[in-house]
């Protein structure tokens, strides 16, 4: 299949000797494309649209929580909002954004002409919109959308579901298949398509993190598929995997789900590590400190992620030894994660630092992600987790990790490579506005949630006791500010695509990597002749 693509090429006067397809025009170009850059762009756009959709739902949640009492929505619709917000952000925004970055950058970083399986690549993207169409269509059904939380704990999602389970299950199946195909493509590309001379330990850390993430995906997405299948048969076909009446056990659901769920958390953060490990050295003008320990730390985090799942379940009534085991393993994760943070700090130490927007987002990432890591460490302590569990403290924790962590790293990556993608420099002032507005509002949004949680506000409630009113008001204001700030990014990207100052092949003087050896914008085909790595 790879040969087909290359045989179809006609000569083109691109300066790096690249070739050019008979590029189709209009919709067909995007429907039939097997080009990793096209597919990468589609992934990124799709994830941004999903990010805005999921964000709109978050704003409904924050509007309802602006003051005590039920003002805007019914509790059931509120639950639908929290559920679909979670699903969209996890499976629709963060994961596809990383896949998009992988598609765009991996082949260029390893010196390959394209992904190893370009048609599979097209397919894995194009089933995604259908998955989310199914999920979102449930809003217009009599049943309403899924309302059992993105964690879909049985039996709330089975016996007691509102009838949206089937839509949910099929949507998740398709998302899962898409992710698995994407992951297979990444692994195969990295294993087979590296330029001659690029040994594993010479790969950029970005490539390493995606390599390990892809393995995690391949290992756990099938488990998720199994879980949703069991939920489906429990709901509609009379099995009782999770129903005590038939000999099942609802707690088993949580074990299987979190066996997927915890590695999933790292699927959303390891690529972020890869991105900032690329940007921080570039803007510190100094090589990444401790490259090999970074690789080993990533691998050990990935390994540990398989044996900590039950720390999400301390209150389910685990035996003492189970609680201790999972507490110790979870605390252990702090070690490799700490190594990473120390390495980034050491990379900046005695560098020659400048503060372009990608660097700003990267620094914010390191600090805010670390705050999320601290609250994670607190949550790991079983006795204290009894107090934190299922409160806003947890909400604060995972939003620090996923918004100021994963999302900020994606912004850092986008600002870093945008000139390479579009061929134009973006508006620097706008990007700084985007950063500072996001930084201030995101902390106003999520930091007070720590206090709400400690004061005793449970998560996933549409209304709350009066003592939580003031903080919730500020959180809601922060939420709307953060949401609006993202529109700056949308404007900036559109402007940058339309034109602006021409970007040189390597706009950042400290940047390293093969992607900067090709022109900006990157030609449609790059590295049809593999580069030589010493």
């Amino acid at each position, binding site marked *: 299949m790879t040969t087909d693509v290359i045989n179809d090429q006609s000569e083109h006067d691109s300066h790096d000797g690249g070739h050019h397809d008979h590029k189709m025009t209009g919709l067909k170009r995007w429907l039939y494309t097997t080009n990793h850059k096209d597919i990468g762009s589609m992934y990124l756009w799709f994830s941004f649209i999903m990010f805005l959709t999921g964000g709109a739902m978050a704003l409904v949640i924050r509007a309802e929580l602006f003051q005590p009492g039920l003002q805007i929505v019914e509790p059931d619709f509120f639950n639908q909002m929290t559920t679909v917000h979670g699903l969209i952000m996890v499976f629709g925004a963060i994961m596809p954004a990383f896949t998009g970055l992988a598609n765009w950058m991996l082949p260029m970083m390893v010196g390959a002409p394209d992904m*190893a399986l370009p048609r599979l690549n097209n397919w894995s993207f194009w089933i995604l919109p259908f998955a989310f169409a199914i999920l979102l269509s449930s809003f217009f059904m009599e049943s309403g959308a899924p309302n059992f939380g993105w964690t879909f704990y049985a039996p709330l999602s089975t016996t007691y579901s509102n009838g949206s389970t089937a839509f949910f299950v099929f949507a998740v199946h398709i998302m899962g298949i898409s992710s698995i195909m994407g992951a297979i493509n990444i692994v195969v590309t990295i294993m087979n398509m590296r330029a001659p001379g690029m040994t594993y330990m010479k790969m950029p850390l970005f490539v390493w993190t995606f390599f390990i993430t892809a393995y995690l995906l391949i290992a756990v997405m099938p488990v998720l598929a199994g879980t949703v299948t069991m939920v489906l048969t429990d709901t509609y076909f009379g099995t009782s*995997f999770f129903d005590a009446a038939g000999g099942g056990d609802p707690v088993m659901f949580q074990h299987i789900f979190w066996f997927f769920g915890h590695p999933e958390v790292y699927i959303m953060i390891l690529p972020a590590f890869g991105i900032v490990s690329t940007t921080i050295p570039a803007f510190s003008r100094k090589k990444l400190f401790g490259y090999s320990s970074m690789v080993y730390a990533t691998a050990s985090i990935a390994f540990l992620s398989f044996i900590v799942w039950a720390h999400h379940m301390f209150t389910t009534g685990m035996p003492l030894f189970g609680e201790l085991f999972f507490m110790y393993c979870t605390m252990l994760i702090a070690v490799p994660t700490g190594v990473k943070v120390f390495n980034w700090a050491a990379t900046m130490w005695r560098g020659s630092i400048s503060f372009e927007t990608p660097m700003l987002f990267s620094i914010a990432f390191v600090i805010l992600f670390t705050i999320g890591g601290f609250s994670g460490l607190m949550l790991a302590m079983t006795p204290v987790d009894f107090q934190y569990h299922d409160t806003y403290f947890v909400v604060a924790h995972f939003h620090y990790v996923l918004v100021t962590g994963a999302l900020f790293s994606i912004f850092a990556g986008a600002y870093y490579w945008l000139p390479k993608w579009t061929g134009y420099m973006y508006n620097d002032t706008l990007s700084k506005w985007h950063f500072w507005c996001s930084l201030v509002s995101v902390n106003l949004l999520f930091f007070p949630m720590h206090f709400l949680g400690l004061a005793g506000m449970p998560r996933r409630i549409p209304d709350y006791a009066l003592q939580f009113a003031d903080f919730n008001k500020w959180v809601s204001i922060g939420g709307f500010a953060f949401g609006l700030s993202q529109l700056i990014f949308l404007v900036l990207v559109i402007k940058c695509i339309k034109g602006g100052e021409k970007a040189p092949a390597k706009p950042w003087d400290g940047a390293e990597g093969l992607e900067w050896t090709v022109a900006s914008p990157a030609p449609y085909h790059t590295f049809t002749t593999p580069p030589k790595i010493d």
Partner: protein
Amino acid sequence: MTNRESQNKLSKQTQLQTKDASVKKTVKKLMLIVFGMFGFGFAMVPLYDVFCDITGLNGKTSNVAASYKGVSIDTERTITVQFLTRTAKGIPWRFEPMINEVKVHPGERKIVKFYAKNESVSDIVGQAVPSVSPGRAAIYFQKIECFCFNNQPLKASEDVEMGLQFYVDLDLPDDVSTITLSYTLYDITSSVDS
């Protein structure tokens, strides 16, 4: 097309073919992992049960009868065994232990009775599901004979006294002195019928 170009193209093609083969190999291996992990998801169901049996996780007790060896009775220790019952939604049965708690010595056999009455106008099949707390005591709570091993059909207005014969294992950890046994009663008429 010049000669050199076509030669170039040929060598490129062979190169790509070998690459193609190794790609296929990798894909196959990865697909194996995918299917293996999908299977593993389901394998977790029996694995979980085995794990529960070994550790008493979640207070699950064995659903096969234990045989009473009756080697010795540890009269030094007295264990309080409490009985709780709960009827699930939609089962119009009265279901309660006839005695709230008993004191037993480890190794000693005890029989207690539970009372059930179908208070509806239709025939119903009930199934009691046991759960033991603390969970780690579950594996030491041995049921020689229990109504929960089988389902219990009751005609309309029929009642029954159901027996539970058990003993507490001699190896029960020292720091456990109270065991709570709870039964939740479910209506399984529809699944028995079909």
